[in-house]
């Protein structure tokens, strides 16, 4: 994550969400998709992406598939059944976090 520490804790959730939407993706594709979706605002660095993918794979949340493409092997990641459940949980957690942050940063004052 090049630009903000705020995104750091959400990297795994971003990866899970992208895989949930796209079925299967490879590392480079994930970095480009995030850049595209955030209009270049968010840049996932290679040094952060692969350790996150490998950790999710070791935790059993991702499955891998190898396909030969253009003279080389490409490693695709996809969600396991456990990964699908975890995505729902983590997205709910993230949404709650965003809601709480909005309330903290921009509280709606009212006189009772």
């Amino acid at each position, binding site marked *: 994550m090049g630009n903000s520490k705020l995104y750091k804790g959400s990297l795994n959730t971003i990866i899970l969400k992208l895989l949930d939407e796209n079925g299967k993706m490879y590392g480079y594709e994930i970095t480009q998709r995030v850049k595209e979706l955030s209009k270049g605002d968010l840049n996932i660095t290679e*040094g952060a992406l692969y350790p996150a993918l*490998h950790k999710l794979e*070791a935790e059993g949340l991702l499955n*891998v598939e190898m396909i*030969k493409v253009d003279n*080389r*092997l490409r*490693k695709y990641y996809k969600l396991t059944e456990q990964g699908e459940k975890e995505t729902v949980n983590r997205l709910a957690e993230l949404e709650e976090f965003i809601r709480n942050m909005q309330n903290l940063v921009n509280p709606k004052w009212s006189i009772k």
Partner: protein
Amino acid sequence: MKLNKIQIEILYDFTRQHFVEHYDLQTELVDHLANGIEAQWRDNPQCSFDKALQTEFNKFGVHGFADIIQKKHDSLIKSYLKIVLKFIREWFRLPKFFLTLSLIGLFYWSFTSDFSKIFIIIDFSLICLFFAFGVFYNVYILKRRKSRGKKIFVLHDIILRGELFAVIIPLFPLSISFFEIDNPSSLSSFSVLLLATFSTFIYLLGFVSIIIIPKKAEELLKETYPEYKFEKSM
């Protein structure tokens, strides 16, 4: 414009020169670098292969591939421990559980016999020697594979190096000092039983991680790595 086979080989060499010695990680990084280079060529077809490669590599930061290598190893250590526990669990289920009980009984008998001190020294020395020989043999196999240019996967490396060995060996002197084995007659039956169970567990841990799992490495690699089947064809 796409990279040709020779350029892909150059990328594999490049990862090796930057201390990525395992084929699974090399393959993933090669594809990443290749995608980046091809993307640069789409924007600027005049860009040389070497310059495009350097630009892509710089994106990995000042540490290059080092962090990725270390964290991949850490992730797979967790997977390896899960494998070890899966094999250990078999020894606590029938029919192997009878063997485990017999081993506990054997340790208990040797610790309570008149020659307990000698038995303890012989037991622990033999186990240590046996496991040390196992680790040396596995590391020898690993080095031979490397010297013959065979592809090594991170998990294969962890399995053959028997990384648990470093944890198992200090457990012996620790158990000796903890249970005051130098004076076994002072121990209660319960303490001896505990010591016998502990010794059995250490023995099983060593046996499974140094003997059983390396023997089944091929099978485990096929389960873990879909690219393993491509190994011979690439």
